[in-house]
C-alpha cells in the first residue's frame, strides 16, 4: 500500500508536488520580500523568517490532508477500495497505508517549500527534534482527518468543503502571518481554540526558538488529537461505515 500511495504521488507530481511549491514561492516573494521588507523585525527575526515555518506547515497540512482525502475518495468513487476490502489486510494496515502516503506527500512538499525558502533567506534551526516531531505529527493528524472526510464524502464537492471552509481559515488565523501577541486580548483568547496555532508555533519554535504558546502543550495536544483521530478512523474503517453496506 505504501508503495502504491508513494507511486501515486510521483506519478501525478504536477498535481501533488508542484502547486504548493509554486504558491508558497509566491508567498515568499510577495509577503516576505516585497511587503515583509517594510514590516521590519518581529522580535529578533525578519518577517520573512517569521512566516517561513508557518508557510511550510501550511503546505504540510494541505498536502497531507488532500493526499489522503483524494486517494480514499477516488478509490471509493472508482470502487477500487473493494480491492482492499476483499483482501486479508487488517483495518490497521489499510489505515496505516493511507496515512503513510499522506505523511510522505506532506513531508516531501514541506521539504521542497523549505528548500525554496532558503533561496530567499537563511533560516536557523534551533530545536530540530521539535521541528521534525511537529511536522511528522501534523502530517499524521491531517492525513487522519483527510481519511475521515473521505469516508463520509459522497461526492467530489464534499472533499473540498473541509479544506476550503475549515482548514484554510484556521490556517490563516493560526498565527501563520502574525504573532497572536499583536492581537486584541479577546482575539488572543479565541485563537487558543485553533489547533493549527499550536502546530504552527511549535514548528516555528523548532526553527526560530520563539513561540506564542507553550511548546510542550502543543506537542502533547498534537499527540492526543492523533490518538483520538486514529481511533475514530479505525472504528469507521473496521465497521465499514461509508464503505460497506
Amino acid at each position, binding site marked *: *500500500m505504501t*508503495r*502504491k500511495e508513494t*507511486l501515486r504521488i510521483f*506519478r501525478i507530481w504536477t498535481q501533488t508536488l508542484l502547486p504548493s511549491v509554486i504558491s508558497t514561492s509566491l508567498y515568499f516573494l510577495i509577503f516576505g520580500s516585497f511587503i515583509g521588507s517594510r514590516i521590519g523585525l518581529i522580535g529578533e527575526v525578519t518577517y520573512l523568517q517569521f512566516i517561513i515555518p508557518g508557510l511550510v506547515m501550511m503546505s504540510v497540512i494541505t498536502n497531507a490532508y488532500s493526499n489522503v482525502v483524494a486517494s480514499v475518495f*477516488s*478509490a471509493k468513487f*472508482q*470502487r*477500487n477500495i*473493494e*480491492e*482492499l*476490502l*476483499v*483482501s*486479508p*489486510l*487488517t483495518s490497521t494496515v489499510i489505515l496505516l497505508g493511507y496515512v503513510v502516503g499522506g505523511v510522505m506527500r506532506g513531508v516531501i512538499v514541506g521539504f521542497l517549500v523549505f528548500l525554496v525558502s532558503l533561496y530567499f533567506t537563511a533560516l536557523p534551526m534551533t530545536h530540530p527534534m521539535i521541528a521534525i516531531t511537529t511536522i511528522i505529527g501534523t502530517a499524521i493528524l491531517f492525513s487522519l482527518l483527510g481519511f475521515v472526510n473521505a469516508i463520509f464524502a459522497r461526492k467530489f464537492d464534499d472533499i473540498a468543503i473541509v479544506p476550503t471552509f475549515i482548514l484554510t481559515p484556521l490556517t490563516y488565523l493560526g498565527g501563520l502571518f502574525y504573532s497572536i501577541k499583536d492581537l486584541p486580548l479577546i482575539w488572543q483568547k479565541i485563537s487558543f481554540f485553533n489547533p493549527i496555532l499550536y502546530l504552527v508555533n511549535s514548528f516555528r519554535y523548532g526553527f526560530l526558538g520563539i513561540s506564542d504558546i507553550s511548546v510542550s502543550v502543543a506537542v502533547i495536544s498534537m499527540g492526543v488529537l492523533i490518538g483520538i483521530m486514529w481511533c475514530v478512523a479505525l472504528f469507521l474503517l473496521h465497521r*465499514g461505515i461509508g464503505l*460497506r*453496506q
Partner: protein
Amino acid sequence: MLLYPKSTPLRYYTLMLENLPAIHIHQLTKTYPGGLQALKGIDLTVREGQFFALLGPNGAGKSTTISILCSLVNKTGGTVSICGHNIDTDWSKAKTCLGVVPQEFNFNIFEPCWQIVVNQAGYYGVPRDVALKRLDVLFDQLGLSDKRNEQAKNLSGGFKRRLMIARALIHEPRVLILDEPTAGVDISLRRSMWQFLQELNNGGMTIILTTHYLEEAEALCKEVAIIDHGKIVTHGNTQDLLQQLNAESFILYCTAPIDTLSALPPISGVALRQLDPLCLEADIDQNHTLTELITYLQIHGITVGRIRNKANRLEELFLKLVNHD
C-alpha cells in the same frame, strides 16, 4: 491456449481430504437500512471442486450473497464459512481462500494493468518477485501480455474483464467467485473464458458464478442453486434438477411444406403447433421421446430436416421456479 493450472495443487487435495465445503452458509440474513430484507435465511453448501451457479432474477439476492462472501456487505445474521474458516472469527484466512471477479469494473483506471494485479498480490502477502512471475503466466493465458503496460482505462470491456480475472487469481485462491463474468462480452471471448474457467475447475479450483446466461450455467456448472426473493428455491445437481422439467419444447424444421397437421390423429404426450408452413413447435412430455415424435411424423409423410431446443432447458426450469405471474 489456456493452461492454468496444469495440475491439481496439493492444497485442493488437502481440502478434499478434510471433506470441508468450499462455502458453507447457514441461515444467512441481510436487511438493508430502510428495511429491505434481501436475504431471508439462506442455507447453502458448495463442495470443494464444484463449478457452481447461483441463479436468480434481478433483485433476488444473488449479489448480496456474493458481496457478503467477499466482505463487501455486512450480514445481518447467520454464519458463513469459506474453506472451513468463519468469516467473522477467522476472516483473514477466509479472505485468503477467495478470489473475486465483481460484476462492475472496480480497479484504478489510471494505473497500468500489471500494477493493478501486482498491487493486489501485495495485499495478499504474495512477494513481489513471485507476483511478477505469476503475472506473466496469467497475462499470457488471458491474452493480456500486449496490454501489460497499458493504462486500464484504455482497455476494451473484454480486456477489462480479463484483467479482473487475472487480479482475482494472482494470489492463487481456492475459491473463485465470478459475478456475471461474461456480461457484455462478445461470444468468442465468452467461449474462451468458459474454456479458461473450465480448466481452472479441472485443476481443482471451486468456481461459483452468477450469470444471466443460463446456457452458460447449464454448459459449465455441475451444481446450481436458484434464489428468489431472498430464499433458495432449489439447489442441487444440474442434471437432476433438469429432470424436474415436465416437458421440453422443440422447433422442428420440415423438408417440405405441411398442410395436413390439423388432419393428423393426436399423439400421446406431445402438443404440436404449426408456426409456419415449414416449421413446427412440439412440447414433449417427460415420459415420451423425440424419436417417438419423429417416427410419428414420418409415418404421416412429414420429414424433419433439423431440430433445435426452443429454449435452454435450465432457462425453462428457471422460469418455472421463479415465475410468479
